[in-house]
């Protein structure tokens, strides 16, 4: 790739893309007027808060619950399990549990989304749009409202719960919530559209003539499907997984409401530090560790697929 600006003979001037020769102040003012607002926005509302959060994570909570000096690594050490009371891996367990919940949620979303994407893509274009509405519109309902709706659906007196009780899944009189089951139903409900959309657009673009080509080359229909069609949907699948698994790591409303107090995830832990415990520095440290973990996974993935593979996701 060529550099956006190139030095020219006159040291006071540079050549911009398109061959235009500008003085340095001209170039800067042009950059400020085009990219400026966006950069400013990102700086004010993303970079700056993150830097504040980073600084916070090294501060100490005082007796009144305010963040104050000195700067230490204590918060990170505490997260790893060492506390004044001795070693307790409670937070690492929460991280592990969060990862599991995120992966299981993603797994069920994929399991539902694949057939759904193929089902929708198999219809005429007009019908496809209508079917997609059924996938997308529910996600316009506020997340908390949807979660409360599940609490009603899963309470002991609802027909769904009574049916489950009649089939022996729960003891009569018990509700289907709070439970892990309720958490997963809530999570899958929220994240399904995020995986169906990219997957559907990948399935829609499948070159079906390849199915015939594979069969012509002695593949059975099943072999052709898994070795030729499914690989074409992989970019969409990975995009969907990223859109689901990462936000699922930070989810705290659903586990809180549908899981009762039993299922504490990393999102709940962070919320607790910034809320009841008033320990901003520790909350900031947990946030940073989760973010770091996510970035590390994405980095490893991008290393594996290369630049083109990452571009395919978009």
């Amino acid at each position, binding site marked *: 790739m060529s550099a956006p600006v190139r030095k020219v003979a006159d040291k006071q001037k540079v050549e911009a893309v398109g061959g235009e020769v500008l003085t340095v102040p001209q170039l800067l003012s042009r950059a400020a007027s085009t990219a400026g607002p966006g950069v400013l926005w990102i700086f004010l509302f993303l970079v700056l808060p993150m830097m504040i959060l980073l600084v916070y994570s090294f501060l100490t909570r005082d007796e009144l619950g305010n963040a104050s000096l000195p700067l230490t690594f204590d918060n990170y050490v505490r997260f790893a399990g060492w506390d004044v009371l001795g070693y307790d891996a409670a937070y690492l367990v929460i991280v592990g549990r969060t990862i599991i919940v995120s992966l299981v949620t993603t797994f069920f979303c994929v399991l539902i989304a694949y057939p759904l994407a193929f089902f929708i893509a198999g219809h005429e274009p007009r019908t496809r749009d209508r079917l997609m509405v059924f996938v997308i519109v529910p996600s316009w309902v506020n997340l908390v409202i949807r979660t409360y709706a599940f609490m009603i659906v899963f309470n002991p007196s609802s027909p769904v719960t009574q049916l489950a009780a009649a089939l022996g899944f729960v003891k009569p009189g018990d509700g289907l919530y709070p439970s892990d089951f309720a958490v997963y139903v809530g999570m899958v409900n929220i994240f399904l559209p995020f995986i169906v959309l990219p997957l559907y657009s990948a399935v829609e673009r499948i*070159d079906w*003539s*390849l199915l*015939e*080509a*594979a*069969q*012509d*080359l*002695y*593949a*059975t*229909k099943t*072999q052709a499907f898994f070795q*030729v069609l499914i*690989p*074409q949907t*992989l970019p969409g699948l990975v995009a969907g997984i990223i859109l689901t698994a990462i936000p699922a790591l930070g989810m705290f409303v659903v586990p809180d409401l549908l899981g009762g107090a039993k299922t504490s995830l990393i999102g709940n832990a962070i919320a607790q530090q910034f809320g009841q415990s008033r320990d901003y520095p520790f909350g900031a440290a947990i946030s940073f560790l989760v973010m770091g973990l996510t970035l590390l996974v994405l980095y490893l993935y991008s290393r594996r697929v290369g630049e083109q593979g990452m571009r395919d996701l978009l």
Partner: protein
Amino acid sequence: MTELNIGERRKRQLEESVDVHFKNIRKSFGDVEVLKGIDLSIRRGEFFSLLGPSGCGKTTLLRILAGFEFQDSGEVLLRGAEVSKLPPNQRSVNTVFQNYALFPHMTVYDNVAFGLRMRKVASSELKTRVMQALETVEIGQFAARKPAQLSGGQRQRVALARAIVNEPQVLLLDEPLSALDRKLRVNLQVELMRLQARLGLTFIFVTHDQEEALTMSDRMAVMNKGVIEQLGGVQDMYERPSNAYVAQFLGSSNLLEGTVSAAGQVKTQLGELEVRDPLPAIGQEVMLSIRPEKIQLMREACASNCVSVSVTDDIYQGATGAYRARTSTGIELEINTMNTGVTHTDYNIGDTLHAHLPSELIVVLGSGSRLQEVVALEGLA
């Protein structure tokens, strides 16, 4: 050893040399009957073309042989064995698709190896065969690339290698060159012919390009609206088209309607013409055909089959030249000349000349020839 009578032996020989046999194939899509009872035998090791305009059923016939479509009735025999009920993966035919249909997520090597892997060929043998196939089409150096990193011509070669590596009994080619530019297409035509000669495989080539079919095939079938109009060797088909459709579709022809007036004489709008071809009884209507390049234009009058015309169009085409000339009765003739001189000719628009239609080069077309069909064909073009 049992003695076979000569007829029996001949029949055996014929059957053994037949690779593909379509028996009365019919196929409809909805209300449209696209194949109206096709009977066709394709010999072992020949380069056979199915030629026709789009919608004539040629691709459907190929897809029936490959197993992607099933005929409504009739049989398909591959080396004497009925294959009609078999899915595509159990037929030893391979297809080169019009859009190549390469697997985008696999390298060239894996694309070519796909068929062998599906048939569980041992890995040592697989590697040799894949590399050999890639060398055959001269793309060995691109083995590690993905299809997206190749040019159209290179992709075409991969598609070809992917098919021939399986050593099929019959190779099906569905307009494989139509997406390429002209120069490359001509080069690949020659390469395909050499490859076919070297491998000794039966090639069935579907095309709507008559020049391509004439160039490459040993034999061909011209199809139209679900029937075979004519089947035969390419030279035969060009020189002796059996009806007006074939005469017009394979190259161009001047068609003349007339009535048999005497033995070897037909009365046409150009006047009385001498014809060497066998004619029906006197008084019967016939249609005559003569190729534009067989007509000679000259300034002097000639002895027989000579028509006085005036030049209406003078079309320079580089290697060849084309004239349109009109007779006094208003019949327009198409006449082609070779550009052998310094300029392609010295005739000008408006010149009154003599056109000689050699009697031995006039073809009497079959009874199925009607002018409507020809008109319909011109509408298509």
